[in-house]
């Protein structure tokens, strides 16, 4: 693990709030251990800023293990930086060279307004999930877990889609700021499993409509999202979503109200 020390120059986007225009500021990051993570490098810069009485660079983060999806910004034009399949919190400084100049800016999309500096509001993604990204089953209703057998291949495929961490890198990487990869991963996860069948069509229709309503752009399958995804969510999900949506749209039935004769 033996680390060495490197020095970097950072050009960081500073923006006080959603209405501020924002601009780049330059900072020196000196004596950065190559064993440190990118966020630990920013911690050091921030400690210096705070000691001087300046405000630290704001960025979202929590688990620092690549799983909570809180972190994420753009380094030199790439969402989550240069390393494939890696969130910024898992990006380590051994991937950078001494003397490098790095440009750091927030994920940019109309649907992700900047809160401060590198911190953006991604709650639009939660609202897409709220529009049917679930299986309607109340606590206590479940049958024995082994009552429905699921072929291993389907379970594995569903799991691969379900590993999405909702970081928003797909949106940031897309020239149209489309949320198709994110939305399709959830639609795929649930439509691949027997439990997800009952609401399958309705889910596809509602989630796609919610995605459009949030102001995300349309997908032109350039694949930039897949390349930027830290969890390797595959473009196959998008084809699956398109198919699900199409079938659901064609076979759509009028909705009945609850109630009935009683």
């Amino acid at each position: 693990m033996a680390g060495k020390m490197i020095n970097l120059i950072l050009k960081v986007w500073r923006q006080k709030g959603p209405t501020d225009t924002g601009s780049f500021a330059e900072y020196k990051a000196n004596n950065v251990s190559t064993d440190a993570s990118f966020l630990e490098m920013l911690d050091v810069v921030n400690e210096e800023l705070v000691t001087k009485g300046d405000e630290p660079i704001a960025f979202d983060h929590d688990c620092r293990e690549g799983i909570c999806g809180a972190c994420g910004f753009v380094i030199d034009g790439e969402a989550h930086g240069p390393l494939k399949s890696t969130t910024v919190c898992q990006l380590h400084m051994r991937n950078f060279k001494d003397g490098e100049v790095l440009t750091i800016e927030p994920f940019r999309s109309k649907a992700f307004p900047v809160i401060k500096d590198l911190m953006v509001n991604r709650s639009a993604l939660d609202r897409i999930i709220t529009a049917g990204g679930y299986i309607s089953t109340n606590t206590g209703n479940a049958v024995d877990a082994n009552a429905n057998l699921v072929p291993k291949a389907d379970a594995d495929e569903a799991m691969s889609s379900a590993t999405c961490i909702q970081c928003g890198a797909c949106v940031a990487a897309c020239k149209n700021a489309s949320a198709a990869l994110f939305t399709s991963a959830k639609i795929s996860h649930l439509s691949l499993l027997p439990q997800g069948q009952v609401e399958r069509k309705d889910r596809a229709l509602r989630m796609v409509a919610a995605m459009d309503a949030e102001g995300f752009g349309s997908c032109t399958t350039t694949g930039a999202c897949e390349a930027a995804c830290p969890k390797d969510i595959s473009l196959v999900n998008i084809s699956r979503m398109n198919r699900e949506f199409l079938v659901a749209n064609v076979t759509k039935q009028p909705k009945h109200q609850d109630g009935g004769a009683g």
Partner: protein
Amino acid sequence: MSKLDSKIPSGSIESKWQNHKFSSKLVNPANKRKHSVIVVGTGLAGASAAASLGELGYKVKAFCVHESPRRAHSVAAQGGINAAKNYQNDGDSVYRLFYDTIKGGDFRAREANVFRLAEVSANIIDQMVAQGVPFAREYGGTLANRSFGGAQVSRTFYARGQTGQQLLLGAYSGMMRQVDLGNVELRTRREMLDLVVVDGKARGVTVRNLVSGEIESYEADAVVLATGGYSNVFFLSTNAMACAVTAAWKAHKRGAYFANPCYTQIHPTCIPVHGENQSKLTLMSESLRNDGRVWVPKVQGDKRHPNEIPESERDYYLERVYPSFGNLAPRDVASRQAKYRCDEGRGVSETGRAVYLDFADSIKRLGQDKISERYGNLFQMYDKITGDDPYKMPMMIYPAPHYTMGGLWVDYNLESTIPGLFVAGEANFSDHGANRLGASALMQGLADGYFVLPSTIGNYLGGTKLEKISTTHDAFKFSADEAKSEISKLMGIKGNRTVDSFHKELGNIMWEYCGMGRNKEGLKKALELIPKVREEFWNNVRIPGDANYINTELEKAGRVADFLELGELMCQDALEREESCGGHFREEHQTADGEALRDDKNFCHVAAWEWAGTNKKQSLHKEELTFENVHLATRSYK
């Protein structure tokens, strides 16, 4: 009457929960809509509670500090979740899971709670599968299992190395469905800064909107705290950065007793500390011990590359010392053994504070593909962090603070000493005694949220007269004013040191004197040092910016201020408990071969602390533990 009435129902251990549910008061469906419940924290425990309460028809107000509930720290759980399904036909049963948990907790947990946990464990798996959690499966389509420490059966369900993520997504989606249906109002990026108590009952919370900086008040008929654990008191731990004791601590200051604060779990397999600027430690899941073998060189100071050290010169010390559990010895035991080996000078890595976790034998036996299928994402994470490839050389690991068994005291109903305040998940002290077994925290959080609280909160609301109140009540104003004045006090200090520098200083003290090994002298020293750090903090911390917009330094400062009080209580509790049990190891109390030596005559109790005011010694209340089903015995994994 002592305030510590555990309210354990009568009857045989097998019948307690059923009888209790039957004799509980019910709220009729039309009245449920008139009741509101606040749920603070939307990790596994909180999200499952909010979803289930919403389904029942209560009006739920849910809060979390995260941007999205799906980012709660539960998301990071890797290895799995236990349940007494006995799908493997290997002799598991509710009773065995109950027994293993009591024994694993070194006989310091309440039997009735643990039995209920084991009893509902099977329903959790059913529920999660119904919600679409893609658990690992066998080729025949049935669910797969693995083994975890402290058990000789295979009862752990998992989803690759991301079980917590998948379970949280299940609970979160259930809650978002209730948001969709209008039964749950969700407020994110809110930090609870106080509990509001009216006429002795929990009736609301004061929160800070972390974006706008505003202080807000919310009222309800009952409050649930599901705000997670406090391992971050050590600064370096496996917990996520925002994990804090603040919500629980503020409730403690309003009258909720804090139980067994010194029971903390140091996890044996974490990536060792690399340097000064490290911000957290990364866990390597316990599941790795299914296929990994732990060893150190036989001779001190052996600096050879691990692959060059021949079999005969390696000490597989867990297999040697604990032949029947081997590498699957429970966490407290495995951590202590790693410490002993490093103390003997046989630790590896540049610092000498690490041991090997070696997969070479399993790779030879099962092939790299099989190992990669089981642990691929963990191996990748290790490689990313350390730059070493664990397929080619053994991992280096060392123990790190991970989980806190202590927490707010609750009775059988999960109700604290403040009526109407319920506590769930890692935030309560309930089920794990002095040591938690692997894969049992996820189980407990979901048991609390899905199955226990919906019933016990109904009982409370159905049987309690509650005046109608609103946030214009004086108690809300008073609480909001206090929160505001604490914030202005912090902002006004304008000192010279950063929040993190204080947090690190506290963490070092805790790790040194209240970590894996504790003794009287060290704890007394810590009790002298902590108040000094706290005093300097309140005179010399520097928080830039202002309080009326997002201010991450201010957030951290509030949390560290509470850790500085909690740390002292942990040392106090550790000093008072003159025995060793589970994760609490008092060096004065050990057997000849270095195992924990309990004192059942004097310490077979829960220690619950009552807040007495700033800088005053808290008063201790005891809940005696009785064991009617499991015999108090010396724990042995040999």
